[in-house]
């Protein structure tokens, strides 16, 4: 018996039972969960805009990136369904960030180490367009 038939049967039998029945491999996300996540995301956006008007010095980037990462994790886990997905999909998605990290860290650190030899080009502020 094919999976299609079995699903159809399940559906016919389960009728209006709670969600998850009859969905075979589908996994509909509960709506309250989606709305909660959205509310948290908006709250975090407001927080990050608010905190930008305070000066935290060198921690500034870290705070901003931390908030962005929390948002990204929320989007990933719930909107992108990773929480209920196959672990393999999560693994390949996370592995991409490992390689991004490798690339960015090595390149940036090399730039940093050579930056002392770097003689910047200095050109004047443009004023020629004034008439």
């Amino acid at each position, binding site marked *: 018996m094919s999976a299609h038939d079995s699903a159809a049967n399940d559906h016919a039998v389960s009728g209006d039972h709670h969600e998850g029945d009859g969905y075979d491999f589908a996994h509909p996300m509960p709506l309250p969960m989606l709305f909660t996540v959205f509310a948290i995301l908006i709250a975090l956006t407001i927080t990050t805009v608010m905190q930008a008007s305070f000066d935290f010095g060198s921690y500034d980037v870290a705070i901003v990136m931390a908030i962005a990462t929390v948002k990204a994790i929320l989007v990933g886990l719930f909107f992108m369904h990773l929480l209920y997905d196959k672990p393999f999909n999560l693994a390949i998605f996370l592995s991409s960030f490992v390689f991004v990290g*490798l690339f960015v860290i090595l*390149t940036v*650190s*090399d*730039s940093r*180490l050579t930056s002392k030899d*770097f003689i910047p*080009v200095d050109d004047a502020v443009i004023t020629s367009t004034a008439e």
Partner: protein
Amino acid sequence: MSAGLNIPGGTVRDPGFPTERENYLTNSKGVLSWLFTLDHKRIGVMYLIGVTMAFALGGLLALALRWHLLDPDGTLFTNNIYNQVFTLHGAIMVFLFIIPSIPAALGNFLVPIMLGAKDVAFPRLNLSSFYLWIFGAIFFVMALCASGLDTGWTFYTPYSTTTDTSVIMATLGAFILGFSSIFTGLNFIVTINTMRPPGMTWFRMPLFLWATYATSIIQVLATPVLGITLLLLVAERTMHIGIFDPEYNGDPVTYQHFFWFYSHPAVYIMILPAFGIISEIISVHSHKHIFGYRFIAYSSIAIALLGFLVWGHHMFTAGMSDMTTIIFSALTFTVSVPSAIKVFNWLATMYKGSISLTTPMCYAISFIFLFTIGGLTGLHLGTLATDQHLHDTYFVVAHFHYVMVGGTLVAFLGGLFHWWPKMFGRMYNENGGRFSAFLVFLGFNLTFLPQFILGSRGMPRRYATYDPEFATLHTASTHGALILGIGLLVALIVLLMSLVRGKKASANPWGGATLEWNCTSPPPFYNFERAPAVGDPYDFHSIEWDEENERYVTVDPERKIAPEEEPTTEPAHADKKH
């Protein structure tokens, strides 16, 4: 099923020959049935034709270069034209031939059949990746026709932002080819992950599939970085965005980082599938179980991952910081470990095997020889101190030709000869094939061994003219290139002749145990009637030589007949109504 064969204690299994209706080459006719095919085998064949043409073009350019270098002052071109010719030779060979050669041409044909699947996971994506390849090739040809390209295949800034040749056209071409490569890799990853039939566990996969999987990982992870690098380069040329262009505080070394983050792993895109082919050929033609299956499988993945850590060794003299060069130099040596593991395992496989010196085996043996030289000379270039001396000399040229031509091209030819009977159902002239392998081996060494000496004596690469003291070695190299060219021509003729007057190939001409030898030669369009029985891909115990019909057959051990008792009328789970 073959009658008249007398092998005791078993039934003989042989799929025989396909009917015209089944044969994937003939089951539908007309040009359109090829152009719009979704059959991975036909796409593989179209790729094969495409990359062969690209290779012919790149090879002719190479011959022209060698001809030019016959004389210290150059014989053929002006210096300017010389720059364009070597750039196009490099770019065409890298982007249009080596990268798609094994994965896209042979891989497309073989991956689903070896896996026991009906097709790749996304047939339409597969076809579109072929057409992207065509578009990319068109862009390259347009660049050639417009105003040439003289940056070298690496498009280094700041020269690539200032030269007035058609850099934009060529980079867009490479960008499109990158997408083609990504789609192929993506397709294979998904196919291998989700389309394996029952019984095909990860460790029953042929090593070619492991190699293809590792290649696909690199294609997917590295190629997008090339894409963005080339797009930024186009933006740099059109809008001067100042990221790579020193005129606006950009940093050319950053460009090199970006570029080699792709292009070093791309070297493994080129060589890893070759490893896979050699693993297959060595085992099948030695008629012996592959030695260290898991080591070869894991080392493919290890190479793919370690390949991402070593890109800096292309830039030791480019102005990286001392610290970074030391780190990259140290990391470079780690890659040699899994490569060496493979070579040792191949040698151990051949040890005490019953080796038949068929054409594919000749190519495989010359691969081991040439790749070892190529790999070992890589150590000189990975060592910081010696690289200072050898960087940008002919030593580098010889090194990467030993790996790319002696490695990938020879393996590609070996694989082509190995699977040719499967692909087209015809046997070629064995002696002609062996002769071509001999010529290629001889010509190749004559071309590139002198270049090692040239390089260590200080002959810089990419020069149109040279000191008269280098003349002897350069002349030897040019003659070698001619022999190499003749050898390749012989190989082509042998293969094409087989289509016309070759003997019909049996399903299993070499005695292989992987799944592709279980279907007819050429395979039917549906690959397998039902999901095939999967065993150890390198277990040759049940493969026997059938003297009478000159073929290998699979002998299944005799099975006991099931006891003939009446089944009970009541099903065992009768109470559970379904």
